[in-house]
């Protein structure tokens, strides 16, 4: 599974999201890679899943990847629930 963590510039909150998602993948034993991207590059990138804050996710509507919005990046449970929901 390829996951793209996206934010406005690709070096701040996307990086924090990447780390949050990696912690969840590791804890749940899910195979996957997480890369970061800024929102304009993300439009042209392929992935299975995109994780982003709601304002950023809006800009990625229509992307071929499933777009998951994360409101609170410091909340392990929110990330976990949304990833597990995608997996099921």
């Amino acid at each position, binding site marked *: 599974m390829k996951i793209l963590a996206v*934010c*406005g*510039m*690709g*070096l*701040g*909150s996307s*990086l*924090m999201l990447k*780390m*949050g998602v990696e*912690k969840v993948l590791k804890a749940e034993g899910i195979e996957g890679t997480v890369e970061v991207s800024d*929102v304009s590059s993300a439009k042209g990138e392929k992935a299975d899943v995109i994780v982003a*804050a*709601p*304002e*950023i996710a809006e800009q990625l509507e229509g992307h071929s990847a499933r777009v998951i919005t994360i*409101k*609170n*990046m*410091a*909340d*392990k449970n929110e990330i976990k629930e949304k990833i597990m929901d995608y997996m099921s």
Partner: protein
Amino acid sequence: MLLDLLSKKRIFTKVKAEDWYDVGRKVGEILLKDNLVEDRYIDAMIKSIEDNGPYIVVGEGIAVFHARPEDGVKETGMSLITLDSPVEFGHDNNDPVKIAFAFGSINNDQHVEAMSQLMTVLMEDGSVDKIYAKDTSSEVFDYINQIVNKNRQEKEGE
């Protein structure tokens, strides 16, 4: 590493700020004072919110300001302020902001390890309120240091 970039002198507690612009200005000025960024970097951090919305409020009570390396970063570094009273950023879920970070990185990877440790700190249960409740920069620094060390030992023990 986080506490190399976020030294004790770049942490200020109980800072008074009127609105989110003021929060960005005040946390950014710490970087400016240490000669890590140019003045225009602070404007760029603020413009990024005007352009993309308050998504830099990454978790409940936490704002992380930054712009791009080419917006005037001289040296990689990070600053932190805790607010005297919480400030609304217009975020649906995570308002009001109690603590705000700013960072500048000279490239896209020099800050990665520090951000990883920062995430560990922020994901620790109750950490934001604990940081917010501290009175001095030394107490904030020691608390962050404690979480970073605990996590490092856990990793080594795996």
